[in-house]
């Protein structure tokens, strides 16, 4: 009898909407945020490599990502001025709020790649907002509670993000693979793509004003099933596992 009741409870949890059951997960993180945070700090400290470079890799990546973003914004602004000279134009991210958040706990295994952060709806966060780590986009907000939020990384198997590669004027969907990378498929081999090309998230009205760097092409080969399209592997441009904090772009919805 006891077994039947527990089994029934399990089935209720299984078929209950994710928005409802995620409240249990947020409650756990909220209650035990202190030991979880300590545990994560210890793990990061244990994994941190010895600094032997003159400039740390993280700082180098941060500046490279910033440069890529600014260059892309400059090029876009240049194109706008060229086409629409005489008309007023708003600068990208004007009026946007950047909410800084600490990572409480994270999971980057095969089945899910996500963080739980210490900012929520009360700080202006909402689903689908873009999240930055070291000046590059690392994912989007997937669930929000009052003071906590879940970030789905673009490497998560459930993540789908519209992206464009380097100078190509075409956008394609990028889907996570779960092993710290993502795949872009359905891009014809007629387009020139090479390893090391920068991948940008496409702008999304109300969420992202200008394209921003997501990652770099780590591998580019013809698709095994359909040789007329590329099978592109994208790797993040920052060490996501070593991040301590992130920034969320909260656009001013009135604009």
């Amino acid at each position, binding site marked *: 009898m*006891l*077994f039947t009741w*527990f*089994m029934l*409870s*399990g*089935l209720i*949890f*299984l*078929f*209950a909407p*994710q928005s409802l*059951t*995620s409240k*249990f*997960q947020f409650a*756990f993180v909220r209650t*035990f945020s202190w*030991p*979880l945070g*300590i*545990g*994560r700090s*210890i*793990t990061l400290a*244990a*994994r941190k490599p010895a600094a032997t470079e003159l400039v740390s890799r993280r700082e180098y990546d941060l500046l490279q990502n910033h440069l890529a973003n600014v260059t892309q914004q400059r090029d876009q602004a240049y194109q706008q001025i060229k086409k629409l000279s005489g008309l007023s134009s708003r600068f990208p991210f004007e009026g946007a709020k950047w909410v800084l958040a600490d990572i409480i*706990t994270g*999971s*980057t*295994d*095969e*089945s*899910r790649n*996500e963080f739980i952060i210490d900012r929520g709806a009360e700080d202006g966060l909402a689903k689908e907002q873009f999240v930055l780590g070291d000046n590059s986009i690392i994912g989007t907000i997937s669930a929000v509670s009052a003071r906590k939020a879940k970030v789905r990384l673009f490497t*998560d*198997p*459930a993540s789908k993000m519209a992206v464009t590669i380097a100078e190509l004027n075409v956008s394609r969907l990028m889907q996570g*693979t*779960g*092993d710290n990378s993502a795949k872009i498929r359905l891009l014809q081999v007629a387009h020139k793509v090479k390893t090391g090309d920068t991948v940008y998230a496409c702008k999304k009205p109300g969420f992202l004003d200008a394209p921003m760097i997501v990652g770099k092409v780590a591998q580019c080969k013809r698709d095994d099933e359909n040789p007329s399209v590329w099978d592109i592997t994208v790797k993040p441009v920052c060490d996501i596992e070593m991040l301590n904090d992130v920034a969320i772009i909260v656009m001013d919805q009135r604009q």
Partner: protein
Amino acid sequence: MRWFRFAALVLIATILQTSLIDIIAFSAADIKPNLLLILLVFFAVHCKSTDAIVTSFTIGLAADIISSTMGPQIISFGLFGTLLAELNCVITIRKRLYQSLAIFITGELAAALTYFLTFFKAEPVASNTYTELFWTPLYSAIIGPFLFVPAQWLMRMKTNRHWRSSR
């Protein structure tokens, strides 16, 4: 059964599983042991059947809270934990080798059912299933019996032989 100690042990294991367990993970393939699976088998082979049902489903709930989807692990841990407890009434799992084997088989079966239920719920499943289905149970099976000793001490539990004779 000391339920307060059980709750504390499950809580500690859940927190460790979410954070510090990464330290002992094989970083290349991200293979890490499942502390909650080890606890599941520990309580299934050391408790009475009724207690084992409660502990199995509770540990399943804890496993679900730290995963992406709620539901699959309550069912799989609850089901296989209960079956193992029933099996333990017939065949006593006393030797470390058999305990390892019990962890490995329970881990594999629970992972397979979790995978199926997650897929059934139309949620994203692990792209590399070998890790979940084989390497995690194997790693847990290797270290599991050694963790039984401090767990037995903490729960003030006797060995199987004494417990069975007292029952």
